[in-house]
């Protein structure tokens, strides 16, 4: 351990310090023959592997070859130059999420979700809310401590506000997938304004919007608490909700 904390320049480790050995595998769209293996070595060289060994090559179907390469990588890693992107809330496991809500809020968190405007694509909101989830991660419905209402597509803003009020929502999630002429931005501003009008500031539910066309930095400008972009997972949203709601409890209610 000492060795790595002191040194800032490191190389991959095979079986000897500094040997730079790595293993990679890839497929090239060429039939398996000697030329294919030459092509694999050429790619390896361009990836910085020298010397490199094709230790395994196998034809896949008619026009593809799969390779496993072992080789020495010439690149150096400078630990002092590593930048870790900061997330301003901790990622929690499902267990931690449920446990934190139970311990800190002592009640279930009410979440209302919808697609607003003319957008009929519930893919995003369903991925985050439905039990089925996305990419092997279950949606918020799977969490014992979230009470989820997914209103589906083409929900009007007044209806969304009414449903949020009726179910005492802690958070409102809005998804906008398909958009044109910045409809997703207009819809979001209108939604945020409607909630501000309908609620006193301290009672307003958290407003979260998500969709591939949003810029995550625009939250403040659009009047919402958080924006989630492409590739967001349910656990990320759940972790954020736990963070924001427990924060809010300590700042507003105490």
């Amino acid at each position: 351990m000492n060795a790595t904390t002191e040194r800032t320049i490191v190389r991959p480790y095979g079986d000897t310090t500094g040997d730079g050995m790595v293993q990679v595998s890839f497929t090239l769209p060429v039939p398996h023959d000697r030329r294919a293996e030459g092509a694999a070595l050429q790619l390896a060289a361009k990836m910085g592997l020298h010397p490199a060994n094709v230790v395994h090559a196998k034809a896949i179907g008619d026009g593809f070859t799969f390779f496993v390469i072992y080789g020495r990588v010439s690149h150096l890693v400078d630990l002092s130059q590593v930048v870790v992107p900061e997330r301003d809330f901790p990622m929690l496991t499902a267990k931690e999420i449920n446990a934190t809500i139970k311990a800190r809020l002592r009640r279930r968190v009410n979440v209302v979700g919808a697609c607003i405007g003319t957008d009929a694509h519930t893919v995003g909101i369903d991925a985050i809310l439905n039990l089925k989830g996305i990419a092997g991660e279950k949606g918020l419905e799977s969490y014992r401590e979230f009470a989820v209402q997914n209103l589906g597509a083409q929900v009007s803003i007044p209806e969304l506000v009414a449903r949020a009020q009726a179910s005492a929502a802690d958070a409102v999630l809005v998804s906008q997938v398909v958009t044109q002429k910045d409809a997703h931005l207009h819809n979001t501003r209108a939604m945020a304004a409607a909630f501000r009008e309908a609620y006193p500031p301290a009672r307003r539910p958290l407003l979260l919007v998500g969709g591939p066309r949003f810029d995550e930095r625009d939250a403040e400008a659009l009047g919402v608490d958080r924006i989630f972009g492409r590739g967001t997972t349910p656990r990320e949203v759940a972790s954020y909700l736990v963070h924001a709601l427990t924060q809010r409890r300590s700042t507003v209610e105490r």
Partner: protein
Amino acid sequence: MNGKLNLDASVVARARALAAKAGAPVVELAKAHTTVSVERAVLRLAGVTGADPDGTPWVNRLVDAVVADVGLGNGVALPVWHAMASLGVDDPTLLAQKAAAGSVHFTVPRGRSRSAAVTASRRAVAAGLKRIDAHRRERERMVRRLGDPRQRPWIYLIVATGDIYEDIPQAQAAAKAGADVIAVIRSTGQSLLDYVPEGATREGYAGTYATQENFRLMRAALDETSRQVGRYVRLTNYASGLCMPEIAVLAGLERLDMMLNDSMYGILFRDINPIRTFVDQRFARQIHARAGIIINTGEDNYLTTADAVEAAHTVTVSQLLNEYFAHEAGLADAQLGLGHAFEINPDLPESFRLELAHALLARELFPHAPLKWMPPTKHMTGDVFRGNLLDGFFNLAGVLTGQGILLVGMMTEAIATPWLSDRDIALANVQYVRNAAANLHEDFVPAPGGFIQRRAHQVLDEAVALLERIVDDGLLNAIGDGTFGVMKRPATGGRGLDGVAERTDDYYNPASDLLERAGGRPGDAHAAE
């Protein structure tokens, strides 16, 4: 009935009787209702095709028009064929176009007009069933000529690019590499669309839309490959979600071979209304029975949300319910791809022994069903090397316990949709195990009174206890209370409830009439005509 697990035949019989008792009220409920999707399926059988310029299928436009005039509870067949007779239109698609333009007023015919509409609608639907029968015979002919895969389990592989024209070469390559069954996974969210998209599609989210044209293109491509590889390569899609009955019809019309069709999946995992689901499912299964399609049920899903050891008996309960509903709809044992999965936490001591006990229990409870064995997903991580090892054990359990259909596990399960090379590595894994341990099941006889037998007995006992509770409580209430998975789904909630109606005394459905009279078998249908 002792087999390898020495199960008590009276306990097994009790489990089946309880499943029937739990399921019977739901069947009665299904018989007392219809849905927009059942009625659209009837129209599809009668030959209504295509969509309006906005992409809304004519079957949707026609059902909506009928519902606006006379409601859904009478079914659409009588109002539609009566209107056709009155207006002198002989093509129901043309009637749909006229109705969409607002130039048709629908009524429920009485007396002689009713008899005429019954006869005419039955003739139109019989023509559709005849096409399904022809496809079934074509499949039987191709299997006779080309043969089934030489070994069990059949190797089931998924393709899912979103673009049917990209799926086709991938599916063909997979079949050439050894896949016996190709499943084209659907676009995320299709199950919640209340219409079936039209035409060949090139864009989907994490899957390819199920459309009649996509079905046709893929089946044709696999026919070509089947001839090349000298075995019949089967094609699978999904009869689930809000359009289950219609997709079942399209599958029958395009000779798909297997369809995902679980009795409770849509309710639990998609929040589709329970009554909508059970009504749609019964009709879809009647179509599948007729088409000779093998259904695949979705018990694996329970284990992805609940603990695979604690919830093992919920899988057994669901299998028994799925079996009951399937038999009631006319499906034969050979058409029941009852699902289960290898989802026990691999860090648990004796996890493999537990898996064997569960897998063997399913095998012995349903000796004539081609069980569908699903790979680990929940405990797969980014460690692809460990994942490949776990998949090897999954494959071994499948071979040892005589599973019928094996969905190939991917070591990259937790990372991305499979790459070409992932699939190749996964297939090599299955083929190694299937080759190395092909007949090991002969030697695999669990010790009498040993761990595996005891565990299987325990799961069966727990299943019986749960079934007793469900019978007391009522299946719909049990679903409403969150007995399965972790979801509470009340019968009055969920999507698609507005598309459900109680049948009136005037209700007529020519497809149900023909299917129920024929008992699902094509030979009898011809006699009935």
